[in-house]
């Protein structure tokens, strides 16, 4: 796949888990996405600001450390408040504190406005393909101008 799909990604809140973030970044890049990776410990504001800057198709949020729910409150509303009406929202990782029933977690985050919710054990290929398809469909319905720069995060210092 070679696309001009642009995503902003990052690990939200005070979460420092950086290994998955690096793996995910690489996987999106391999699938041809333009990836703006903010790394770990991003606030909602960081993600929204970057998404506006690069005119992102989607924001891909990770949370591993258990505070996902606390950190994501109002995220979807904040996006709209900031004029991001069309951006798709994704989240994945260890989304609850402790071993919980997946359906409950998924429902919770869907209700919060995320377009899809992924567990840490979901197949990455499949997840990225789903996101790819969502974006394609959305673009087909709402054609918008597309940003130029490829993988801008390479210019940014991200570790």
């Amino acid at each position, binding site marked *: 796949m070679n696309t001009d799909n642009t995503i902003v990604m990052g690990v939200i*809140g*005070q*979460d*420092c*888990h*950086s*290994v998955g*973030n*690096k*793996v995910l970044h*690489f996987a999106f890049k391999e699938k041809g996405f333009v990836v703006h990776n903010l*790394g*770990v*410990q991003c606030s909602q504001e960081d993600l929204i600001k970057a998404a506006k800057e690069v005119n992102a198709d989607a924001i891909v949020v990770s949370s591993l*450390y*258990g*505070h996902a*729910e*606390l950190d994501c409150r109002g995220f979807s509303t904040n996006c709209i408040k900031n004029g991001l009406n069309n951006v798709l929202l994704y989240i994945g990782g*260890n989304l*609850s*504190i*402790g*071993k*919980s029933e997946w359906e409950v977690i998924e429902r919770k985050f869907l209700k919060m406005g995320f377009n899809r919710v992924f567990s*840490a*054990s979901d197949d990455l290929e499949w997840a990225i393909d789903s996101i790819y398809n969502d974006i394609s469909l959305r673009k087909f319905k709402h054609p918008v101008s597309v940003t130029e720069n490829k993988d801008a995060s390479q210019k940014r*210092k*991200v*570790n």
Partner: protein
Amino acid sequence: MQVKNVKLTKDQFYKTRKQVLESWSTGKSLSLDESFRYLNSLPEHKYFSKVLDNAKRNNKLLLQPRGGVATLRGQKTLLEGFIKAGADLMPVTIDSYTRQNEYLKSEKGLSESLTTKKSVLNGFPAVNHGLKGCRELNNSITKPLQARHGSPDGRLLAEIIHASGWTSNEGGGISYNIPYSKNVSLEKSIYDWQYCDRLVGIYEEMGISLNREPFGPLTGTLVPPSISNAIAIIEGLLAAEQGVKNLSLGYGSVGHIVQDIAAMISLRTLATDIFKKYGYTINLSTVYHQWMGNFPREESAAYSVINLGSLTAVLSAANKMILKTPHEAEGIPTLEANMDGIRTSEHMVKMISSQIGSIKIDVTDELQIINEETNLIIDKVLDTGDGDLVQGTIKSFANGVLDIPFAPSIYNQGSVIPIRDHLGAVRILEFGNLPFNSHIKNLHREKINKRVKMENRKANHDMIVSDIFSISNGSFFKRKSHEVMKC
């Protein structure tokens, strides 16, 4: 201000202390004299230092699980369960907001946890609980307590927990910054941890022996032993300079028996030599962390990973082992899962300890590599700082002489890339700016090449991703015809 590896003066310390204690309401009432009296009144079995000494005398491996929940009552229940299952040393894992000094957020999480009767925090917000709550916890538990966190600036936390009779504190200016933070400068975190260490030094001067433990495993993910050991020893030296006398140095398993044993032996012997060389009198103990990287989701497979850890910890004569649970991959473990982790660990430890005298494993090759590499790193760091270890550390991270794989910090180069060799040991594919000689580098390259040949596969990003998941997958290799010992 340029931070140096010099003992903080009393002046410096008390000036800073004032600000620290004022940074949140619960700090305001602290008094060192009153805390001394409280600590002095505690029985020996509440002291990490004593329990560790005892264990060392009896060649006993102490077991410490991990665990923290928001509420006091929840934390008590948790620790009582740990003891019931057989744990020797008590952890109090601190929540992630507290670690970042966001006490307002943890306050919210705490009250939400109290109303919903379910912990919405990933740890115990000790600062919010304050002296009252933390002492109540300490008084209700018969074993010694340690704070385990990940705070780049854990000064107020250190004040509160030690004043509350928690006799050990985990962390350090490097190990609780680079793997745990994106934006905190080493200058700041080292300075702030000098404060924590100095605090322990001051208690030590008053005759109260508190234990300090740098966080050994760093990112827990394929960290080459010489890198983590060098950092552990450096943090030990920094702590020693501030007056810390009772020190536990830790190491996180790479899941490779021989390399892990060699790493532990190297850590123990080099640390002892180096402390001596620099004139510090240290009561040293060692800590073995069961595999800290990505865990298998299947609980039965998680048990295997846990048991591999226990086996190796005994074989490497560690004094303490930090435990995982069968829930590791899923989320904060329940008490029951934690108890299972303790029980399975204890059982393996007992079985292996019973026969340890008969097991002779040859680890000389690996030991030599780790010794040489660790010495090269530490020497270069000192050199880089013109003899000052703090400046040397800061500059070494800046130029990649110190470099922790997969770390999130912008103060870490991230140029070092680890990879497993044909026999499963962790080697280095990209050396970045590590101060290794060509003899060492060739050794790594040769071994990695053997794997490339064996698997008939390139040593690239794809292989590294496999390696991140190797322990959770079980097999380290993709198409290996398992080479089994021929007799």
